[in-house]
């Protein structure tokens, strides 16, 4: 909290005129497109179409620059479960368009083109806006999930007609779930070691249309765009898709990246994170029988951690990512394309809310809240009817409230947010009989409150503006010629990169997926190379923070002016110079 407060204060101080900005709501695909069309000064790019035919579009902010000017790519809602992340990406585009001559905006655009893909996964995105809302990621091809010889015959559905697909809990002796003692609305898995016995079976809301006593277990779609990328692709998992890049969305995104080698860094707003938490790391050469080990190479992870620290300081965000990023866009960009891939999970329902009465030793109405480090009051945290001996051992292994219980605390302390949780309510299910339906409303854990949305978006934009200066930029630091004999020169060149990020990530060097720096000695009018390095050198690696690469040639030339140097990259600028006499 202290960091967050500090960051907000510094962000406000940092701005000349802190305008009160309107909330940033979630937008449908059509609304996003409409707002994108309003934006002036950016080029419209079409990447492709989703499986259902919705366009995947981008805006490119380009200012004239040297050959090899880098591009920074911003992507929203690639997993489809984070529709607000599309608003965030769009917000950045609108801010760039609104103030292209602002000092920091101009600094970014001079350094890099900015490409914004607000909605990378339109089909899943639209589930936020259909008459029945659901957090379902799958948009692609389906398999026979329940192996009954039929496909898609038992999908999730809005059984109670409240316009949302949530959860159903059914009392069942074979159930695995119990109420979290910290908040009985939150469910946790029963822990047999604690002597807990399950009370409920938990199903996604739906029917049992195939009468196989399994609920909503075979939907028409299984493949998820953000499990469909080739890095760590999980073959044979239904959500992965038939093969890597089988989905039109993932292929459109991948082909876009392949067609734009100037992209140096990608910020993806979505379910994953590598800015708040350091990602899982690996050694550059770690392999198992020729198969490379997944993870971020240590050297790259350290640089990401540096950026991450500034990210946290700038935004105050503490939302960690969810789950394993195998098969994701974010992981593919880094692992297969060698790009700097910043994964940001912009908001989650806060886990650190405190109830007003939390300072007292009394348990709250849910018998839940305790001060950190405090022992639970006897039996208050244990399920009722538990034997005394069990309760005593449970006392030693204190159970932390589940994240869902913590989120509920935040909802309870913000009455205007109550709609984020659908209270469990009894329902007579056509196949299962009496059940309870409830749980977090779709998207309740990814959409910030309207009152915070503008502040969050501004802070994210603040961080984004700072990234331009980090991108590798090569320049000729020196090109000098020392006369050794009449018409004979020793030519020395030094190329450097003053930015923090190196010319290529360790991943790019490993994958050889980012083209090398081309260092070309330019000789005019009969000047001739007599020795030293090649006339064309391909430099695969150049570190950041002032790292240099040096070259030497012996050149016969009638005039100094016949000797020049030209350096080129796809993604880190270019430079050229004529030789000067070495003093």
């Amino acid at each position, binding site marked *: 909290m202290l960091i967050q407060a500090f960051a907000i204060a510094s962000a406000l101080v940092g701005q000349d005129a802190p305008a009160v900005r309107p909330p940033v709501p979630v937008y449908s695909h059509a609304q996003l497109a409409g707002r994108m069309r309003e934006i002036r000064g950016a080029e419209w790019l079409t990447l492709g179409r989703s499986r259902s035919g919705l366009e995947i579009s981008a805006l490119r902010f380009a200012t004239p620059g040297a050959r090899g000017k880098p591009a920074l790519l911003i992507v929203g809602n690639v997993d489809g479960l984070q529709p607000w992340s599309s608003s965030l990406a769009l917000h950045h585009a609108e801010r760039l368009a609104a103030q292209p001559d602002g000092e920091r905006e101009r600094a970014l655009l001079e350094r890099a083109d900015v490409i914004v893909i607000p909605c990378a996964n339109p089909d899943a995105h639209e589930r936020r806006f259909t008459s029945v809302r659901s957090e379902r990621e799958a948009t692609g091809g389906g398999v026979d999930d329940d192996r009954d010889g039929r496909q898609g015959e038992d999908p999730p559905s809005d059984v109670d007609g409240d316009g949302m697909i949530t959860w159903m809990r059914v009392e069942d002796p074979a159930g695995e779930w119990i109420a979290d003692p910290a908040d009985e609305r939150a469910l946790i898995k029963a822990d047999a070691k604690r002597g807990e016995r399950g009370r409920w079976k938990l199903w996604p809301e739906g029917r049992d249309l195939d009468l196989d006593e399994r609920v909503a277990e075979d939907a028409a779609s299984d493949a998820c765009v953000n499990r469909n990328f080739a890095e760590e692709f999980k073959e044979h998992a239904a959500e992965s898709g038939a093969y890597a890049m089988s989905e039109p969305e993932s292929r459109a995104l991948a082909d876009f990246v392949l067609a734009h080698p100037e992209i140096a860094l990608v910020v993806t707003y979505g379910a994953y994170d590598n800015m708040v938490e350091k990602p899982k790391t690996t050694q550059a050469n770690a392999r198992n*029988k020729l198969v490379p080990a997944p993870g971020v190479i240590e050297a790259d992870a350290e640089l990401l951690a540096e950026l991450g620290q500034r990210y946290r300081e700038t935004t105050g965000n503490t939302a960690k990512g969810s789950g394993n990023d195998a098969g994701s866009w974010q992981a593919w960009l880094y692992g297969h394309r060698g790009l700097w891939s910043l994964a940001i999970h912009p908001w989650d329902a806060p886990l650190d809310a405190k109830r007003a009465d939390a300072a007292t030793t009394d348990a709250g109405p849910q018998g839940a809240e305790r001060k950190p480090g405090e022992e639970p009051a006897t039996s208050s945290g244990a399920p009722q009817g538990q034997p005394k001996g069990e309760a005593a051992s449970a006392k030693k292994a204190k159970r932390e409230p589940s994240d869902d219980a913590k989120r509920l605390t935040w909802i309870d302390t913000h009455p205007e947010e109550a709609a984020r949780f659908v209270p469990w309510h009894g329902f007579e299910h056509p196949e299962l009989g009496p059940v309870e339906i409830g749980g977090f409303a779709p998207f309740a854990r990814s959409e910030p409150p309207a009152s915070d949305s503008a502040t969050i978006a501004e802070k994210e934009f603040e961080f984004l503006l700072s990234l331009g200066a980090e991108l590798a930029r090569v320049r000729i630091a020196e090109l000098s010629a020392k006369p050794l004999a009449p018409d004979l020169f020793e030519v020395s060149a030094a190329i450097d990169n003053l930015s923090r990020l190196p010319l290529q990530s360790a991943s790019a060097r490993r994958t050889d997926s980012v083209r090398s720096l081309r260092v070309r000695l330019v000789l005019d009018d009969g000047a001739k190379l007599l020795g030293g390095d090649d006339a064309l050198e391909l430099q695969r690696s150049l570190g950041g923070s002032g790292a240099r690469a040096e070259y030497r040639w012996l050149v016969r030339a009638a005039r100094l002016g016949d000797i020049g140097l030209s350096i080129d990259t796809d993604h880190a600028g270019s430079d050229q110079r004529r030789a000067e006499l070495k003093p």
Partner: protein
Amino acid sequence: MIVLGLVFSALQATPSAPANNGFPGLTAHAAPSVEIAWNRFYDERELYAQLDRMVAAHPGLLSMQVIGHSVENREMRVYTLNNPATGEDREKPAMWVDGNVHGNEVQGGEAVAYVAWYLLENYASNPRVRELVDRSAFYLLPMVNIDGRAAWFRDAHNAHSSRTGRMPFDDDGDGLYDEDAPDDLDGDGSIVQMRKYLPGQGTHRLNPDDPRLLEFVPPNERGIKGDWIVLGSEGLDNDGDGRINEDAVGGYDMNRAWPSFWEPDWVQNGAGPYPLYWPETRCIARFILEHPNIAGVQSFHNAGGMILRGPGVEAFGEYPREDVAVYDALGSEGEKMLPYYRYMVIWRDLYSVFGGFVTWTYEGLGIVSFTNELWNDAQSFGDHPQSGRAADHEFDDRLLFGAGFVDWHKLEHPLYGEVEVGGFKKDVGRVPPSFMVEEMVHRNALFAIRHAEAMPEVDFADVEVSDLGQGLFAVDARIENRRLIPTRTARAAQMKLGTPDRISIRGPHCEVVAGGLRSDRFRPEKLEFVERRPAELVLERGVPGRGEVRVRWLVRGSGSIEIEWRGEKARTVRRNAALP
């Protein structure tokens, strides 16, 4: 008119028709309906034209469809061999046969065409061929890398070049694409080797018995040096970067592009940016995924004399025991059909391949799949095996009168000065000479056809109804598969690939109380009865090859019942019975 007459006779002929009986294969009185010279190779247009002639001659059995286009916009054609009179192709187990995924491995294309030709020519006269064709379908794609084949025929090449497709690729990472390919310096249509005479300063000397041969002279204490150096393939430094031939057309491998155990370029050279990146591979994958009836796969390559199966990489482990048994049975038979060929596991006996085609069709789709490497140099000498360059020369000198070799001759190279160029032509080494082509394509095509014969065929061995009293009946059905390949491979069952087999019972007055798999032929109570929906039993493991499955239902009611077995890789079968 002659063609029409032949079509008529092909469709009308009875097995006793004498003229064509047993040809190809038997030779007396041979008169094929479509005469094709199988002692040469055809460029991409000619090969399609040969297949089109077969379509014209056998329109009832062979048809063509375009499933996509290559990088250079050539048609990707699948020729489907199917008898519509016995059902749609999709209702039958199908054999996929392709060739020439590497552009230079041209004989794969002829071998694919030969599969169609053999079956069509023998359909009327050979009952076994007719039985096979009537119960199955063949999807034949002769040239996977049709652009690479076209370039290999059209341009100057050697035996190993034009393996890649034709999409531009920046091999050397200098920002330019395909700017420094080998050059046919003397314009003779061959890319051969360059050597230079440097007396007393070289690494090689000429073989005194045959100066066409270079011999390496190892560094030695006696100070003996060679007089020649070897300068690689015929070529120039076209882009002036100080390197020669470092960025030829393309530079990738469409047999590293398939989605199982795929790894990117830096792990598997040639793999491309993601699986199925190139349009040729993508349209084939789509076709195969849309045809779950494909029950066998054969891919023809060259060379070395191999019958290859996966795994492609050690990290996979080994295939399930039941499937290995099927592979071994087909592979060992193949070794007998294909002298000088060995049945091998790709990673263990050859080298590691990530993203190979036949490893995808097995590991990803559960289909028994082979790659054959057509032609083994050792065949040149029969029982007197020789190998190496000297042997190549002996063969070329004696049996081709030296036609296969470009004799060393001098020319002026802009960088090296006077050099000699010479070497074997592109159609030496990886493809057989003309007189051995027909034997090669026949033996390999017949291996694929034998594989197709092993595709599953399911039928009811018997169905029995017994009265258990009190209105309860037991219906026992025994379903057998008399072919080698199971309806679902162990791989398919393990990974839950495709749709499982189902066996169902229904009748207008039949109520199914329980049902399940029987595990003991003598004890009917050994019944793994299912929890729900007993009228349709799901057989994830299918019907084993040369084996059977027994099921039992407990039913009530009366009147007629129908039992149906249904699966992806064999024809649906039904049997009627009646409750008393």
